[in-house]
């Protein structure tokens, strides 16, 4: 036993000595890998050694020892201290060093996540997890296993802004499919919370149409939300899947979301009273799935859609007629609905209280402002970048041995 601790002390000395240049670090890395068993056997006695190391200069060595310490079971009293010390390490460590041992770093962060969940204080996890992602990522296009954990913290802590900043990154590299499903699902929920329905729809669409050989629970829940967000944002829902959807999803998803599909049908018919009947009939199911809030938004959207539809037929219409057509209780209610839509930019209209009329106007956008040129320019840049990426991926794929094997048969 003593012999082992001596070896550990020697290793610590070597960590101190070999944390200078890149070649030293590589040498240290091999030494550490060889000493895994040693660390595991002494895991309960390693904690004090951490005080001898600097989390920034000796990140790699610190990481190995921290990983071994945290692999032992943790008591609740130790949990909050552990959470603080891992958070400190994440904030201070050197990215180049920890990227040499990504699996170790990931498992330390996973344990961090478990302890934060045990303490039931997700707010503590938000900032460290974001830092961890930025240090672990090889580029902003790389999706790590930590991404979904971070988004989960954001959701639980109701701290959505940091989540949105990560969601703005375009992802091209994915480590594990499961990470991708969870990332898009949680990301969709965050966007829904911030009323960014367009982005939410995109993320949920990615979950539903992702390649898969068997159905999983994440996809089933995502599909339900996908239907609802589609109704809110686009005003309609089509039950046919895009061609690139997996056959397993196409065959089975509908079986798990009957109430939602019925709601979509009812919405398509356009009558508020029928829609509300449908909502009441499936109230329990919606509540159980925690989708009741979204369902309520679908109902209030219907009023908006019906009013918007009127603009296609009429130039002017009385408030009373609007109330009657859209099934509102009074002209005053209709006036408030129209006012809110004007405030949100969902309709171009002017209310004339003297005559009790609404005049519908054309979209005043003339597409000749400076902002419009900026938007066109940045959209074109983005598409050119995507097109280049697609060409590169196509070239890489056509040289891929697996692909060539399948194609040549």
């Amino acid at each position, binding site marked *: 036993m003593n012999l082992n601790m001596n070896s550990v002390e020697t290793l610590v000395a070597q960590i101190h000595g070999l944390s200078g240049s890149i070649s030293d670090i590589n040498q240290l890395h091999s030494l550490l890998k060889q000493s895994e068993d040693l660390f595991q056997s002494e895991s309960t006695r390693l904690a004090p050694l951490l005080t001898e190391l600097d989390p920034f200069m000796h990140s790699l060595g610190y990481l190995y020892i921290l990983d071994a310490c945290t692999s032992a079971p943790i008591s609740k009293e130790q949990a*909050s201290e552990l*959470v*603080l010390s891992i*958070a400190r390490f994440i904030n201070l460590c050197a990215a180049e060093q920890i990227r040499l041992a990504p699996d170790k770093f990931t498992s330390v962060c996973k344990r961090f996540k478990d302890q934060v969940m045990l303490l039931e*204080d997700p*707010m*503590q996890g*938000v*900032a*460290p997890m974001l830092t961890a992602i930025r240090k672990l990522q090889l580029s902003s296009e790389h999706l790590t296993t930590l991404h979904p954990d971070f988004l989960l913290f954001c959701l639980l*802590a*109701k*701290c*959505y*802004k*940091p989540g949105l900043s990560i969601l703005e990154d375009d992802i091209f590299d994915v480590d594990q499919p499961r990470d991708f499903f969870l990332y898009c699902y949680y990301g969709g929920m965050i966007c829904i*919370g*911030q*009323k960014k329905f367009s982005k939410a729809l995109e993320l949920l669409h990615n979950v539903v149409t992702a390649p898969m050989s068997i159905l999983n629970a994440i996809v089933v829940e995502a599909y339900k939300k996908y239907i609802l967000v589609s109704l809110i944002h686009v005003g309609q829902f089509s039950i046919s899947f895009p061609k690139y959807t997996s056959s397993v999803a196409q065959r089975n998803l509908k079986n798990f979301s009957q109430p939602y599909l019925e709601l979509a049908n009812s919405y398509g018919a356009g009558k508020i009273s029928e829609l509300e009947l449908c909502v009441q009939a499936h109230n329990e199911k919606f509540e159980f799935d925690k989708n009741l809030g979204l369902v309520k938004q679908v109902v209030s959207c219907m009023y908006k859609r019906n009013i918007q539809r009127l603009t296609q037929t009429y130039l002017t219409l009385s408030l009373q007629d609007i109330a009657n057509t859209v099934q509102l209780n009074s002209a005053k209610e209709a006036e*408030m609905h*129209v*006012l*809110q839509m*004007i*405030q949100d930019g969902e309709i171009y*209209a*002017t*209310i*004339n*209280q*003297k*005559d009790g009329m609404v*005049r519908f106007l054309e979209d*005043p956008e003339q597409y000749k*402002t*400076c902002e419009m*040129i*900026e938007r*066109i*320019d940045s959209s*074109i840049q983005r598409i*050119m970048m995507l097109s280049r990426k697609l060409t590169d991926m196509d070239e890489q794929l056509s040289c891929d041995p697996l692909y060539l094997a399948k194609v040549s048969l």
Partner: protein
Amino acid sequence: MELLWGNASGAVVNQVALEACVKACNEGRVVSSQGVVFQDEWPYAIHLLGHIYINYINSARFLWNSIPLAVKESQPEVLAAWKIGQKLWTRDYAGVHEAIREFNWSPEAQGSVTSFSELYTERMFDLLVSAYSTISTQDTALFLGLNADDAANYALEGGWTLDHASQMLTVKKQAVATEQKLDLSKLQHLTEICFPP
């Protein structure tokens, strides 16, 4: 942080200071929750008012949901601040003014509340200009949080006209004046994309 509060609750409140205050509050909450129990001392009322001022009602909602019950029950100013946010969320336009007026605000909060009240009246006036061609003085008064006479005067100063007999105000629309400083290089760039040299 304290300096920002000082700025925020001072007599002259400007948008930049409040936005910085909200940002600091948001980040501070995230940073401070790492191991330090700040819950009770956190300036929730000011934080809420900050969100309300810069019109991030969604964020105010989430902040409200995360405030511990103990704080909600013991700090009536937090409840009062939230009431304003709630009225904004449900678009009870007149209710916002009532919520502002009915509470006796602390000195720290009074500055933010007064500035928000003025800003909100301006915003409501702009909304009326964009949405109405004619509107009764009574409704205008509700939207602006003024009595009927003051509301009519406010409108008249904005260029509207009043028909005394029917108590109807006719709105004066703003001419859309956009300074277009065109960046010629952007046009050049777009041209080159379509017609490569």
